[in-house]
């Protein structure tokens, strides 16, 4: 490990440092405000580190690879973590006299995610995922009151561990088949191994897909999603939905590409089945859901179904142009999804806090007239999820469709269209609820007291929500700079 390699690991180092500083701080004087600031500073430092590391892209040992693409997503999830951090301070744990541990866990979880993103080896994949996961268990179960967080945590722990074992077993099989643990090594030796022991290789890959599929909550490994989304504190849910899923998807992509799994038609077929099932099942599940957190959980199932399409398209990729397109599609869609999801959870966290009954759609009735800003943000987020133009989600969907057409994946395309059509219904349901005019005001015949509703104070969450909304709109209405950037990765 030379200096250059160390520099390349800057974000990881900064996060580790933050964790250590937090430990020290806790041992000196427990003060959660200080801990918050330390965490925030640490995340910012890591952001700086991620930028700094761009000049030092290289593989670091066999375990990690630092490249532009990974650094971009590192940046993205660090920002998402910052959002989570802000939300956590404002809106969760009324009893939280001891939130230092939460911040520590958050930092550790982010660290795991960053490692996951940069992993190029089964060991780092495993450790990154577990680090992220174990820290998340603690974060989910963090609230001291209520049974839902606990239930969510235990479900997540058991099911996630189960999935990890599947993943591990799959790794073991692939290792047995190829004798290599690095992604690139597997890719290099896979052809030979396939000729010798195709069954072992395919079964191993399938188990890995199952394990990672669980984290991405694709069908049929999706069942935990709504329960955990609902039970976890809302900022943690947001974190789970963005950082955790995003990082896992990146890792999957790396493994998929480096390991050259796209070559195997049976795997592609299995993946297509998973993708189609996710697109449809996710949307069907969300159709009548009344709890907005559960609804977002179901919708995320569908969204990762959509995203899998891109990986499948790799198998059909015919020219460099299409490959570039696929790369951009992943970057764009994931970025758009993360930003949109954060916007949605910011609103939910602000309005519902930890009160489960407040995250029912009924609680959002007439929000436009009570809190226009948050309502607008949620509306934009929903439209973005639904893929309506001028939002980031639309460009994302546009990319997916272009990829599907270029790769001639008609069945997946059909499922995508069908799923999107179904999805409009439930996204719109939320918007409709928010736009309800309280009955009394109609009788009054004037704006009367409706206008007295809006909150006067303007908290940091409002600023955050507004920023995220602008980002969603900006990505949707002026995507060229970002496309150019994504193309350069």
């Amino acid at each position: 490990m030379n200096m250059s390699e160390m520099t390349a690991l800057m974000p990881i180092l900064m996060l580790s440092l933050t964790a250590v500083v937090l430990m020290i701080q806790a041992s000196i004087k427990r003060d959660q405000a200080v801990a918050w600031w330390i965490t925030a500073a640490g995340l910012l430092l890591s952001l700086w580190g991620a930028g700094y590391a761009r000049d030092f892209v290289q593989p670091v040992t066999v375990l990690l690879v630092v490249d532009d693409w990974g650094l971009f997503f590192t940046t993205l999830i660090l920002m998402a973590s910052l959002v989570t951090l802000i939300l956590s301070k404002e809106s969760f744990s009324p009893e939280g006299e001891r939130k230092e541990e939460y911040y520590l866990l958050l930092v550790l979880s982010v660290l795991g995610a960053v490692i996951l993103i940069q992993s190029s080896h089964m060991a780092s994949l495993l450790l990154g995922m577990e680090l992220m996961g174990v820290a998340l268990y603690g974060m989910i179960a963090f609230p001291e009151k209520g049974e839902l967080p606990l239930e969510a945590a235990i479900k997540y722990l058991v099911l996630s561990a189960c999935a990890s074992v599947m993943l591990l077993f799959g790794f073991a099989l692939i290792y047995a088949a190829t004798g290599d643990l690095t992604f690139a090594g597997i890719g290099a030796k896979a052809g030979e191994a396939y000729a010798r022991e195709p069954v072992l290789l395919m079964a191993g890959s399938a188990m890995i897909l199952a394990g990672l599929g669980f984290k991405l909550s694709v069908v049929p490994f999706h069942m935990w999603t709504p329960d955990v989304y609902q039970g976890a504190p809302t900022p943690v849910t947001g974190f789970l939905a963005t950082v955790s899923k995003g990082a896992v998807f990146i890792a999957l992509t790396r493994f998929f590409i480096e390991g050259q799994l796209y070559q195997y038609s049976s795997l592609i077929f299995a993946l297509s089945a998973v993708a189609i099932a996710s697109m449809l099942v996710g949307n069907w599940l969300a159709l009548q859901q009344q709890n907005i957190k559960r609804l977002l959980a179901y919708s995320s199932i569908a969204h990762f179904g959509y995203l899998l399409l891109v990986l499948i398209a790799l198998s059909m990729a015919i020219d460099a142009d299409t490959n570039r397109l696929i790369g951009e599609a992943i970057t764009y869609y994931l970025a758009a999804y993360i930003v949109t999801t954060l916007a949605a959870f910011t609103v939910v966290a602000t309005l519902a806090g930890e009160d489960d009954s407040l995250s029912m759609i009924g609680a959002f009735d007439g929000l436009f007239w009570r809190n226009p800003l948050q309502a607008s943000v949620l509306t934009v987020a929903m439209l973005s999820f639904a893929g309506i133009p001028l939002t980031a989600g639309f460009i994302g969907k546009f990319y997916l469709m272009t990829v599907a057409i270029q790769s001639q994946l008609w069945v997946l395309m059909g499922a995508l269209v069908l799923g999107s059509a179904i999805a409009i219904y439930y996204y719109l349901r939320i918007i409709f609820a928010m736009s309800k005019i309280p009955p009394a005001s109609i009788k009054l015949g004037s704006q009367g007291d409706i206008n007295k509703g809006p909150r006067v104070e303007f908290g940091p969450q409002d600023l955050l929500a507004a920023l995220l909304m602008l980002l969603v709109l900006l990505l949707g209405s002026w995507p060229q700079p970002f496309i150019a950037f994504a193309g350069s990765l």
Partner: protein
Amino acid sequence: MEGLNIPLNHILLVSSLLFSIGMLGLMIRRNIIFILMSLEVMLNSAALAFVAAGAHWGQPDGQVIFMLILTVAAAEVAVGLGLVLQVQRRFKTLDMDSANRMRG
């Protein structure tokens, strides 16, 4: 210890059996402690497979991963048992079937 010629597939067979048994335990047990034990069995099965594969290739990597799995198991169990304590305190039972407040 020369001439280790135990067939690889037999070891993998044992490992798969352990994996399946662990999975079965996960599916039939309601007591959270047993569920955690099942997870341990499964992790152990994966560890066995890794060590066997490592031995097959004559590489130390299998054992390295085994150690990492040990770490993972320890961390998971630590948090898991912490949750068990909370479950007992709040639900007054360890039966996970009764922990289904969230559904639908």
